[in-house]
């Protein structure tokens, strides 16, 4: 059915785009008005529509966002440095790391990204910290949530529509009890979540409650060692099953920012706990600690 679906989906997506384009062309002043006047349009029933309705403008860089050759070179050097350090520390095959390897790599990542990462916190760790990640679907965030409500900008649409939404709830159920109490923090947690094999953690069965509380929304740094791209995410679900051959899953956004959003949507990654007791590390893509100054 794949080809039938693709054909139908393409046709309907095209029709949808035409409708949105027509709507925006004909009623732009009113739509602009509602954008500006509503503080909560992103979460409102019409919010996603308005964002969809606005044809995506060409993203031309404005002068203040242009970076110099030297800055590009700095960025490139940093990536090469990380790549080189990880290439020396990582085994050739994707396997569980030894404690010594884990510590060495945690030090490399902490130094590169300016975020303290650890393979173990309070005596608790996952079954591995180097494994194969696969793409996951979106999760229902509150009762009555829909896939379309996940859209935050026109560029999100392709990702959201194609990724779909998981039919069942995540391991921690809803992110918020209802839409009214749904916060930006909840939104970011679903946006940047990973599913890890909590159930395979050493001694998990001896202290299920303790491990569940420990893992729930625990922040992790996920790094693609092949390109140096990294994302701060939370543990938002448990999985995948062992038989899948994969060791963790990433939300569509996580996969995108790891450079794994296209094609087979899988690859090898490093994943370590972020030591962030004061909840200061923001979720989302993580840049190298070398800051690029825009002129």
């Amino acid at each position, binding site marked *: *059915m794949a080809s*039938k*679906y693709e*054909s*139908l*989906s393409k*046709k*309907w*997506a095209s*029709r*949808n785009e035409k*409708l*949105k384009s*027509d*709507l925006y062309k*004909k*009623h732009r*002043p*009113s*739509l602009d*008005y*509602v954008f500006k*006047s*509503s503080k*909560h*349009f992103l979460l*409102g*029933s*019409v*919010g996603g*529509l308005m964002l*969809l*309705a606005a044809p995506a403008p060409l993203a031309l860089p404005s002068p203040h966002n242009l970076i110099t050759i030297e800055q590009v070179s700095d960025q490139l050097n940093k990536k090469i440095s990380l790549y080189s350090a990880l290439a020396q520390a990582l085994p050739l095959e994707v396997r569980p790391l030894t404690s010594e390897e884990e510590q060495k790599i945690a030090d490399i990542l902490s130094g590169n990204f300016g975020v303290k990462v650890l393979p173990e916190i309070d005596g608790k760790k996952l079954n591995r910290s180097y494994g194969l990640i696969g793409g996951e*679907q979106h999760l229902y965030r509150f009762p*009555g949530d*829909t*896939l*379309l*409500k996940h859209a935050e900008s026109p560029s999100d649409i392709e990702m959201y*529509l*194609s990724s*779909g*939404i998981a*039919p069942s709830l995540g391991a921690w159920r809803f992110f918020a009890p209802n839409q009214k109490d749904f916060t930006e923090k909840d939104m970011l947690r679903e946006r940047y979540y990973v599913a890890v094999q909590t159930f395979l953690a050493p001694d998990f069965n001896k202290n299920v409650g303790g491990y569940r509380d420990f893992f729930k929304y625990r922040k992790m740094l996920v790094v693609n060692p092949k390109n140096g791209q990294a994302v701060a995410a939370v543990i938002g679900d448990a999985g995948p099953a062992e038989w899948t051959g994969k060791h963790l899953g990433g939300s569509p956004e996580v996969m995108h920012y790891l450079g794994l959003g296209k094609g087979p949507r899988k690859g090898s990654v490093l994943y370590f706990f972020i030591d962030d007791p004061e909840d200061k590390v923001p979720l989302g893509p993580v840049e190298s600690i070398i800051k690029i100054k825009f002129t």
Partner: protein
Amino acid sequence: MQKQFYSHIIEIDTFIVKIESSNFSDAEKGSLLSLVEHSLHTKILDTILAEFEKEEDKNVFLDHLVKDEHDKIWKHLGEKISGAEEKIKTAAQKLLEEFHKDLEKALFS
């Protein structure tokens, strides 16, 4: 599908049943229904906004819509647009017929 102010006057169940009974995967069904849901919403908004004579009436409508104030939406429509309900039904039905045809063609070709 999310409850909208027009949900009670649009007959879409037949369409949903047809999609649900197809051989598409759950993710594919969800994706297709999302496209239909979104297209319908866009079409209905376009239909309504085109009926208002004044810009301020459009803004009042959109304000109510953002807040999901369905009663206020219908009160406003009743005051400003003659036969609003029928116009919404007609626009939605016409669009749904196109989706029906596409689906039939895809499933039985």
